[in-house]
C-alpha cells in the first residue's frame, strides 16, 4: 500500500513538471518577423519620422547613425530614478528601458522598419508595442514633407 502511494506521489511529481513546459525562445528569424514592419517612403523620411516618434514616447537618444539607419534611445523607469541619479546619469550603469530602430530601404519607395524594445534589459516580445510604434510612424509620415530626391 505504502509502495503504491509512493509510486503515485512520484507520478504526480513528474506530471506537475510536465505541466511546466516553458515556451521555447524565439529564433532570430521569428524576432525579425515580429519586430519588422513595412513603411512606404524614402529611408531618410522614415528615419526622421521614427526619430520623432521616439521623442514622442519619452525616450532620449543614446546613439544615432544616419548612414546605417539606426537610432537607440532610453527612458528611465520611475523605480530606477534614484539609481540613475546616484550612478552618474546617462553615462552610469543604471538599468533603463531602451528602444532601438533600424530603417533599411527595401524597395524604390518602401522601407523595412525594425523596432526592438528592451525593458530592464529584457528583450520585449510585444507585437502590440511594435504595431503602435509603426502606426505612429505612419501618422508622422503623412504629416511631414518628403525630402528632395537625391542623385540623378
Amino acid at each position: 500500500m505504502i509502495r503504491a502511494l509512493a509510486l503515485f506521489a512520484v507520478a504526480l511529481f513528474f506530471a506537475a513538471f510536465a505541466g511546466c513546459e516553458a515556451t521555447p525562445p524565439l529564433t532570430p528569424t521569428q524576432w525579425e518577423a515580429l519586430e519588422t514592419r513595412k513603411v512606404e517612403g524614402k529611408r531618410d523620411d522614415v528615419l526622421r519620422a521614427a526619430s520623432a516618434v521616439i521623442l514622442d514616447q519619452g525616450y532620449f537618444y543614446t546613439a544615432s547613425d544616419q548612414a546605417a539607419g539606426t537610432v537607440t534611445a532610453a527612458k528611465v523607469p520611475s523605480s530606477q530614478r534614484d539609481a540613475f541619479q546616484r550612478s552618474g546619469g546617462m553615462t552610469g550603469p543604471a538599468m533603463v528601458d531602451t528602444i532601438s530602430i533600424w530603417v533599411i530601404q527595401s524597395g524604390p519607395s518602401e522601407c523595412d522598419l525594425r523596432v526592438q524594445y528592451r525593458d530592464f534589459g529584457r528583450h520585449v516580445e510585444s507585437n502590440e508595442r511594435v504595431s503602435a510604434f509603426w502606426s505612429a510612424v505612419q501618422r508622422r509620415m503623412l504629416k511631414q514633407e518628403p525630402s528632395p530626391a537625391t542623385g540623378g
Partner: protein
Amino acid sequence: MRNFTFITLLSLAALGGCETTQPMTATQLDALQVREVEVPADRAFAAASSALFDAGYQIHVSDADAGLLTAERREDPSVAANATLLILTAILTRGGGAQDKPPDFYAICIEVLPDGPDRSAVRIRPFLNGQVQSAQNPAARKTVGELWTLMQRQVLMKEPTK
C-alpha cells in the same frame, strides 16, 4: 440614511477631484515644442550644438546627418542643503537611515528637421533625471526658452552679411 447620503456625496466629490489629463497627441506636442528657423538644417544644427555648449551641457549624442542631439548637465545640491538633509534624516531615523540628496541630471534632446532649402524645424525636448518633462512644466518651458534664445543668438551671429 443620513450617513448614506453623506458618504455618497463625499464619494462623488472625491471622484470630481480625479480628473485625468489626456496624453497629448503628436500634433499638440509639436505645437509646443517645435519652432521654425529661417536657416538651412545644417546651420540650425550648428546653432543648437553651440547653444547646448553655452548653456553648460555635455553632448552625449550628435548625429548631424540625422539632425539629432542629446546633451546632459549635472547639478549638484548645495553643501548646506545636503548637510541639512543628512542631519534631519539622521535625527528622524535615529541614525539608522541618514540620506543625502543625489545630483539632478538635466538632459535635452534636439531634433533638427529640414523644411525646404532655407528653413528648418527645431524640436527641443527636456528631460529631468532620465524622464521626459511635460511641455507645460514651467521649469521645462524656462529651460527650452533659454536654449532657444541662445540658439537664435547663434543664428543671428552667423548670418552672412548682405
